[in-house]
């Protein structure tokens, strides 16, 4: 079985100095027998030993849970929610540093640091956001978390390493956000149609559902929320609008950056089209998303793109793509618009 030390200790600069002083004072005391030097030596060594015990008492009762974002974007600042709990009955924990190690889909590793926690009282929780920027698309795993403290004297930093199984899984990272303004201009006719036939997302009441990330706060039904204690949003029946399918063009080359650029473009375009009230679906090798409207659809598309693999060979059924306006998207942008578009 893979074994490792339960704690890692890293000496700080002042720690190294104090060790050097302890050695020097110890030698001087042993040589001269000056009892007051022995007293000073005792103080330094007692400080070092108790520092070890106290840092252990600060770090031992800490529990950590890390929650990844629902969906992150390549290149966009994201946040991991780091929740610490001090399960000690009496002793508070001081000066806690939290570092997370993330592993990307291509086995790249990234270190993320959470804000410094000055004090966590016995039985208390703290919640903070660790900022990070994902560099690649796919599934990012929270590999390890290390809780460290230099408490009480800053002589050394004691670390406790927590491995993935105790942390809380990982999260998906969608393709990067890229500029699609010029291509939106090309598709103005489609967007224009959609705008002409729609007023908002619709006026007819459809139902209530719990609030989710990405929902417009203006749609919160406050009276219902106040009664139930949970945020609820109003769903309205969508008006009729334009439906398009963004189809990923067959990659011209196997270059990774080209493939990713195509996905980034597709995701960004879908997002912008959906913002403009167009119903968007996605067609790609192994992926078929029926066109739909709204924030949910944005999320679905981005999540699907985050999970997308070029290696998948399964093709969706042909009839599913023939009835919609198809926009062929490649690494450089919109390549072609197929069909006159069909209304749902």
């Amino acid at each position: 079985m893979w074994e490792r030390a339960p704690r890692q200790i890293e000496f700080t600069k002042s720690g190294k100095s104090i060790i050097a002083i302890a050695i020097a004072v110890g030698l001087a005391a042993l040589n001269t027998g000056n009892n007051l030097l022995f007293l000073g030596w005792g103080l330094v060594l007692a400080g070092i030993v108790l520092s070890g015990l106290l840092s252990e008492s600060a770090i031992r009762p800490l529990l950590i849970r890390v929650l990844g974002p629902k969906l992150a974007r390549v290149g966009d600042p994201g946040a991991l929610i780091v929740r610490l709990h001090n399960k000690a009955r009496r002793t508070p924990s001081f000066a806690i540093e939290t570092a997370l190690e993330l592993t990307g889909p291509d086995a790249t590793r990234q270190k993320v640091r959470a804000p410094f926690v000055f004090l966590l009282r016995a039985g208390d929780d703290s919640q903070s956001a660790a900022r990070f920027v994902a560099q690649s698309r796919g599934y990012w795993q929270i590999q390890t978390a290390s809780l460290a403290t230099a408490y009480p004297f800053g002589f050394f930093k004691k670390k406790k390493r927590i491995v993935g199984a105790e942390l809380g899984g990982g999260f998906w990272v969608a393709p990067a956000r890229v500029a699609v303004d010029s291509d939106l201009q090309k598709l103005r006719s489609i967007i224009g149609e959609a705008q002409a036939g729609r007023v908002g997302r619709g006026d007819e009441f459809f139902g209530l559902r719990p609030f989710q990330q990405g929902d417009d706060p203006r749609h919160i039904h406050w009276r219902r929320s106040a009664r139930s204690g949970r945020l609820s949003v109003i769903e309205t029946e969508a008006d009729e609008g334009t439906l398009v399918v963004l189809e990923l063009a067959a990659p011209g080359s196997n270059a990774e950056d080209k493939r990713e650029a195509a996905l980034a473009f597709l995701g960004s375009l879908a997002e912008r089209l959906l913002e403009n009230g167009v119903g968007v679906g996605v067609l790609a090798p192994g992926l078929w998303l029926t066109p739909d409207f709204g924030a949910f659809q944005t999320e679905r598309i981005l999540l699907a793109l985050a999970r997308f693999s070029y290696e998948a060979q399964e093709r969706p059924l042909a009839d599913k793509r023939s009835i919609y306006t198809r926009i062929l998207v490649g690494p450089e942008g919109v390549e072609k618009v197929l069909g006159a578009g069909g209304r749902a």
Partner: protein
Amino acid sequence: MIQGRMKAGMTLGFAYETGLALATTLALLAVLPAQTVPSWLWISLLIPPLAAYLHRHSKTLGSGVTTLAGFLILLIASAFGIQGGLSVLVEVMTATLIGFLALRLLSRNEPRHDIQALLMGFLLFLAGSILQPTLVYGLLFIAFSLAVIWALLTHNLVTGGLFREEELSEDEKESIKKHVLARRDIITPRFLSIVAVLALLILASTVVLFASFPRIGFGRFGFSRQRGISLPQSVSLGGGSMAGGSGEVVARIYGLSYARFERGLYLRGPVFDILKKEGFSRSHKDIAGAPSQLGLHPQGEPFEYEVFLQPVTTKILPILGPSRGVFVIRGGKLHPSMPIRTIGVNAYSEVLTAEPLRGPVRYKINGYFSENGAASGLLNSFSLTTSQREHFLKLPSDQDPRILDLVNELLSQKQKSHLKAAVFSDYLRNNFEYSLAQPNAFESDPLAAFLFDDRRGHCEYFAIAYATLLRQAGIPARVVGGYAGGIWDPKDKIALFRSSDAHAWVEYFTPESGWIQDDATPASTQLPQILTGLAAWIERMERRWDDNIVDYGLSHQLGAIESVYLGLKELGKGDQKGDLLKFRNIPSWVFWLVAAIIGLAFSLWQSQRLRSFHFFGRRVQHDQSLILAHAIIEAIRKQGLLEEHYESQTMRTIINHCLTNLSSETKSREASDLLVRSLKIYEYMAFAEGETSIIKIVSIQKELKRWQKS
């Protein structure tokens, strides 16, 4: 509630600055009162508060100025060091450290500068152990420890909060800094109690470590500074008074009765036999003769007493009278565990050591007690050889002729030596005034000025005048330096001599009684002093400090080990309970306390061991979700389905991998179901922090074990 907490304590910034200023001030106080440190350095005490004030207002010295000033300090220190040599090394290093500390405090711009200041403070404090090894140092040690703990704790919190965000702009950093330093929710009564407990633990651990460090070594390299003013190498009329020292205790005499103390104590140090115009000095070579001729004659019954002496003499162990035997218990060298060697008693009845005293020494003497004047009933016949007689009668060639006239005037009828001596001593006592001032020190002939003009002086004037008059009258005489009078501690029955008790007196020779001790100083007739009140309390504390800290050595450690051994031996014999009290130096409650602590620690360790297990290579305490995780992992491992490097995977990934590898048989479907259920419970407990009934956990664990065995 948060608002309430915010208002609860002082700001973190204030606590941080206070800790640093206090620690550095105490470090300065550890060295500044030392006699050898220049008094103008006291001004450095203004630096810590000034630096704290300036730092709070973001005003510090620039690095260029600091470097330049540092070089200047080094240059000055080198000049003093080269001039003074090794003897002033500690003082020069101390002054340099004070300079550097002041510069560092005034120029701190980064957190590491604060740590550097604290380390310098610590080194300064260690210098205090050489310069000022008194009880004051002990009290400062406690205060300094507390201040350093406080300073380090708050520094760690401040730096942790301030300086981690490398990507931030300067403005953002400044904003964070202000926010961090203004926090009031950290320095609360709870925090103070934690610091207090921490300080107690550290001080207790320091004491334990101090007592248990091995007292071995060579003791060849090191520095020591004497406490109190050491006895001079001559008794002169030009310098300051021997008795002008501080009230610091330099010697303690154990084993005396108050009756003996009341009769007047003279702790006899070096003998000065060469008379010159400026005073008495010691001859460089010993005068040929035996103690019976040149030493003090024993009087009364011999008795035993013990002396604890600071290193105020050079190669002489002072005694209360002629000795029959001397045994050095410990000390005398720099290393307290190495007893200095004595080389015997010389012709002047001085107890000599093989090397100069460099540390406190404790020695036991079997000898006699010397009193002023001739013992009654002694009619022994003592004689000096001609050369010895000439040696002790020698007068300065340019002596004032009025002295001879004075002697002739005083001695009209007296024949016997001791009667003549009584005339001289009575004359000096009755017609002269004791004064610590030196009105005659700068006269061309201070002795003549004392005898014929001013008639005021301190003990050296009286001793030299008395000895001169005796020699002029044809009575061999010499001057002795040491300590006289002292103060009596009635509680512990100890006689104490302070620096201010340093004294000079006379010994003269008579054929009837040999060498007789006598004192013509008027102050010598004062009433015995008794130690009372606050002075008594301070002295007892000081004594404990000297006995248990300064004087602590190998013999103490061996004694403690022997006591424990003997105690255990007695215990092993199955003697009665009272036998435990036979532990000689250790009270029985200490034994029981140690036994209780060991027992408690062992039972705690056992309970922790039983409640914990290894998970992913580390010891895990009692945690239901991790116990279940452990059970799942073990079950999968036993089935051979655990992939490599599983440690870095989530439980969900591990189980998913396991499920894909399970075959499609019915048995495997049951296993899949079991694993999925286990995962659900685990994730519910671990991430949703949900409560699950213990019965459910135990039942799933049992199922996992069954599957593990299948």
